[in-house]
């Protein structure tokens, strides 16, 4: 089974935000109750990703070599090829699907929130169900896996009127993206680039950008967090080894000592 | 009136005892460990020493009383040993070849009247 990916051509996006609406409609998300629409000096709405907002268009005012323009970025889970969130999830609620995206099983989640802290793109959001007991659930874009595994396109891709979104075999999406980047460069967008080909194991979300990633607020060199590796691959096995060694050592001492020393006599 | 040295590492005990003794008119000086107690004794020459057994180590009081017994200046000062240790006296008697028993033994928590009586008794014996 080949890996699937989404191609987001930001040069075609008109920021209609139909994708935001389609996502909420398909996934039964609500208007996030803490983000009553307010004039913040930006067209961005809601103000941030949240448990109720899994994708969002960012409006970035950019001063580039070809003058001032708006950049639009559709943000959401990157479905990394090497997902740190999956590595640190203690319940297995986050898993990597054979088709390449990162799935989330809400019933298994226990609300620990580690995924929110280890994601290199700071995507997952924690939905607090009970502030007193700490009950919570994580929340993020699922690539509409229920649609995709049944031969349909993700809701956002299906609805985009500008045809800025595409979804399919990853290699094909990469090829398409690279061709688009070449076309943009030929038209004078010298900073055009394809983001997501190799980072963090290769992202499931590929972006055709017309400015450097940093201009969009994307990390130029996102990394699988070193601390996730340290934690999962070094500290955890170290702990298991330490416990095992201690228990065996104590057992050994006990068996050896039993024969050698009698209970001290109280004189 | 007589001068009494109270030796104990517990400041609450020292303060309480000082109040009891001062009320009766005694002059009170204090020390909080064995070394300090011996230095104070040599300087001030109290008429009686109220000595806690267990301070920085369990048998410190006994070491102090032994040193007092071996010192010409101090050996005639009466000592009342104060202890929380059960069976402290018996412990001491078992190794009694080396340690000098005190003139009086009193157990914590102390009864103020009991303490004052014993002090009078020890002072009158001098």
């Amino acid at each position, binding site marked *: 089974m080949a890996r699937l990916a989404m191609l987001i051509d930001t040069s075609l996006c008109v920021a209609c935000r139909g994708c935001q609406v389609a996502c909420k409609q398909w996934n039964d998300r609500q208007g996030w109750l803490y983000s009553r629409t307010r004039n913040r000096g930006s067209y961005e709405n809601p103000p941030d990703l949240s448990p109720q907002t899994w994708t969002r268009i960012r409006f970035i005012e950019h001063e580039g070599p070809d003058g001032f323009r708006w950049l639009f970025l559709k943000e959401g889970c990157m479905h990394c090829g090497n997902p740190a969130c999956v590595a640190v999830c203690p*319940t297995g609620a986050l898993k990597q699907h054979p088709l390449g995206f990162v799935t989330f099983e809400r019933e298994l989640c226990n609300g620990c929130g580690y995924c929110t802290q280890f994601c290199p793109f700071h995507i997952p959001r924690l939905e607090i169900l009970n502030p007193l007991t700490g009950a919570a659930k994580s929340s993020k874009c699922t690539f509409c896996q229920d649609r995709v595994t049944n031969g349909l396109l993700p809701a956002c891709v299906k609805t985009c009127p500008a045809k800025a979104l595409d979804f399919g075999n990853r290699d094909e999406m990469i090829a398409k993206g690279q061709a688009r980047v070449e076309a943009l460069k030929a038209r004078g967008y010298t900073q055009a680039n394809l983001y997501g080909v190799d980072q963090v194991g290769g992202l499931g979300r590929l972006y055709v950008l017309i400015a450097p990633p940093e201009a969009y607020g994307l990390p130029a060199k996102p990394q699988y967090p070193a*601390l996730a590796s340290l934690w999962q691959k070094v*500290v955890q096995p170290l702990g298991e080894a330490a416990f095992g060694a201690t228990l065996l050592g104590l057992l050994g001492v006990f068996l050896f000592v039993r024969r050698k020393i009698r209970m001290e006599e109280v004189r | 009136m007589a001068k009494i040295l109270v030796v104990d590492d517990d400041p609450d005990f020292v303060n309480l005892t000082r109040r009891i003794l001062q009320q009766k008119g005694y002059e009170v000086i204090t020390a909080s460990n064995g070394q300090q107690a011996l230095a104070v004794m040599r300087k001030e020459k109290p008429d009686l020493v109220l000595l806690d057994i267990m301070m920085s180590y369990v048998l410190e009081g006994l070491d102090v009383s032994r040193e007092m017994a071996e010192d010409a200046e101090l050996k005639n000062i009466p000592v009342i040993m104060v202890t929380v240790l059960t069976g402290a006296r018996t412990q001491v008697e078992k190794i009694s070849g080396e340690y000098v028993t005190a003139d009086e033994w009193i157990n914590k928590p102390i009864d103020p009247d009991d303490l004052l009586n014993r002090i009078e008794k020890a002072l009158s014996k001098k």
Partner: protein
Amino acid sequence: MSVQLKGRAEAITIQWIPKYTTLERLGHWLHVATFIPLALTGMVLYFPFLQPLAQGSAGMTFRLIHRVAAVIFGLLPIIYFIFQPRRFLMHIREFLPAKEDIGWLKAVPAYYLLGKHEAMPPQGRFNAGEKLNGLVMIITWVIFGLTGVPMWFGKGVIPPEVFRWLVVFHDLAMIAAVCMFLIHLYLAVAHPLMWGALVSMRFGVISAEYAAEHHAKWYYGPKRAMEIWEARKREAAQKGGH
């Protein structure tokens, strides 16, 4: 106090020395009562083979237990400090390393494994092993607090890059504390030489004989304890063994 021991015809007399106040003993046992649930509920998130327990509402329940126990665990030393500040500070001082600790470390195999009593130099109120336990528990308490509180309240407030370090240190402290706990548990309960220790933590008193043997420096004082040990070593050398 006279007791009749199993297998002895006559009653023997034990003289008791006070060692732990009631608050100290209560604090210790409450510490145990919170440490174990904290370790177990934490381990649910730690060991992959416990994953089924970490999931869903079971997992949320364990997280809640962890937090409730953590609050009590965190408060215990503070309560001790408020009510018995002198003893609190005395205890901290007694845990600090000293010269005789090196001697203790060198004598461990001979004493704990082979039972050679004369191999062990006189120890104070706490021997080096007990000091190690005390220091590990104190230091890990601090680390658990400094990492655990932000892990609880700081999501979204402190930078994720900082949070990641907190988790790692929380885990490292857990490994140290749990290993120390296992060793401590073994020595207190199972090792034949240490019977007095558990009695002292349950009842607050220690037998004078036990103290004279195991904590000679605390019992006789540094000078006399050394004299007794030298004499004993000479005796053992003459007899050619224990």
